[in-house]
């Protein structure tokens, strides 16, 4: 009894069937667009536009994965832009958030609670609400139609979750370590750089990954509004232009989508344990 499943968790056979059926239904809902999208990417265009509908591809091939590079000429550039924008945004977020999270985790100062609340409230205004003044701001800063027009507003809305996550992590670092450093005569800045930063590295890594994933998955509205240069378009916008055409070449669009989401998929499988803790802790506000 001690080695096998505890009695309390044992299911009757019909309960197990019920659970698996439920999970199957749930996963069908979550995954069917990906399955269908992948099958579409394998179907030749002529088969795609034929009735009656067939779920499994006949004469399936990976041809779309090679022809798409010609149909979507900027594809490699779009993927690079997406990664570049997310990468720079992540670096900027970390530079702002690491000191701020330390201040929130360790120092008592007047107005700490309201200030933390104000940071979290920033998330409320993400997206399109502030689009008009942001547009004017980007224009007066002279950064419209550059990478910065997409990075600068994006960073602001990545900060709240990152601060919250990192603060939670830093609260767990024992205070005694800093006190020992102070006793040895170390300055606050030295203690922050030489004691706290190395200890917080695992937390900073989780925050960096989470921020990068969020930045990569949410590139749309600022890129749509603040940039019209094809050379700087991130993947979602590049494909959106292609998606909006009269005659959409669906199999190539889906092939391009799958190549575009590959980085995210790879990250999920390698880092899923960190991700679950990072993403859900970020949700607890």
């Amino acid at each position, binding site marked *: 009894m001690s080695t096998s499943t505890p009695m309390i968790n044992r299911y009757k056979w019909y309960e197990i069937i019920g659970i698996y059926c439920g999970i199957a239904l749930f996963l069908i809902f979550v995954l069917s667009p990906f399955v269908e999208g992948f099958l579409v990417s394998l179907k030749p265009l002529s088969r795609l536009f034929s009735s009656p509908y067939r779920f499994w591809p006949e004469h399936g091939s990976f041809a779309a994965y090679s022809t798409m590079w010609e149909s979507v000429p900027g594809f490699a550039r779009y993927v690079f832009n997406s990664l570049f924008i997310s990468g720079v945004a992540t670096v900027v977020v970390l530079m702002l958030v690491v000191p701020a999270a330390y*201040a929130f985790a360790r120092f008592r100062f007047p107005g700490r609670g309201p200030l933390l609340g104000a940071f979290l409230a920033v998330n409320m205004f993400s997206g399109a*609400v*502030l689009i008009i003044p942001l547009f004017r701001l980007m224009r007066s800063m002279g950064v419209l139609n550059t990478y910065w027009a997409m990075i600068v507003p994006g960073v602001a809305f990545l900060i709240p979750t990152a601060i919250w996550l990192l603060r939670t992590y830093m609260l767990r670092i024992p205070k005694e370590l800093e006190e020992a450093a102070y006793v040895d005569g170390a300055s606050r800045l030295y203690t922050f750089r030489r004691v706290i930063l190395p200890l917080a590295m695992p937390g900073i890594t989780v925050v960096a990954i989470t921020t990068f994933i969020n930045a990569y998955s949410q590139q749309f509205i600022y890129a749509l509004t603040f940039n019209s240069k094809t050379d700087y378009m991130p993947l979602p916008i590049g494909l959106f232009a292609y998606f909006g055409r009269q005659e959409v070449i669906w199999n190539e669009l889906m092939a391009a989508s799958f190549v575009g989401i590959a980085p995210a998929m790879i990250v999920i499988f390698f880092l899923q344990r960190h991700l679950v803790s990072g*993403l859900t802790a970020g*949700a607890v506000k």
Partner: protein
Amino acid sequence: MNAKKSAILFAWLLLAPAVLYISIIVIYPLIDTVHLSFTNASLRKTYAYVGWLNYEKIFNETFAGVILRTFIWTFFSVLTKMVIGTCGALLLNSAVPGRALFRILTMPPWIVPMAIGIFMWGWMYNGQFGMISGLLQNWGLVDGPVAFLAYGETAFWATIITDVWIGVPMVTLYMLAAIQSVPQDLYEAAWTDGAGRFYRFRRITLPLIVPALITMSMISLISTFNSFDIIWILTQGGPSGSTTTMIIDTYKTAIGSYKYGEGAARAVLICIFLSIFSYAYFRVTSRISMESAR
């Protein structure tokens, strides 16, 4: 300068970059939105103050309809997300082989670029050749092809379903974390007393996850109310305005028609609604934390 004062100064130095950044990119635009809402700002360099004119203009019948539509859209989306997400969390919490894999498989809609997931739904909703219409026809449930995004009624629900799809993973994983934080010995004590599985769920799990349910509903409410990408990619607010929510309407007015003043008035209204939601959220969460502290 004593030690306490220097600590406070150091804390503010650490905070300064982030505070400055948010002030410029969020606080200033917020103030500017309110300011612009009283002007007739457009593409022209100069603009004049017009008083409450922009607000008077939006309180006509069409916009009242937009507000109502936004609330209905948001309500059904949040409700469905919470129901599916919580059911998913309960299922993934059961001790069956393979659950670690099932949890990973829940994540893709959340992790992949949102726009790309929406493109895939765009194909699924395709009338002539899309999967949903195709399967319904093959099973004989509908007579001809159904172009879901071409009719107001179906487009409205189609955009909700896609929004639910994007929101469900977060709700599921968050609720799963909440369910797993319920102390195991409560279940064991109840089980020893002969309580069945359903009874344990109703009397132990459910009361203890209510705070998480409320928190997650409020977070979903704010993000759903702000939802832009899904509607913009699938329908751009159409057909004939049937999926135009407040945020879409604001964007069309401001960016599409360059009426910055009128757009700003709409944005101010959205901010007021969002503030009410957030205020309610903070009140509810602080009450919950006070009760659990007792």
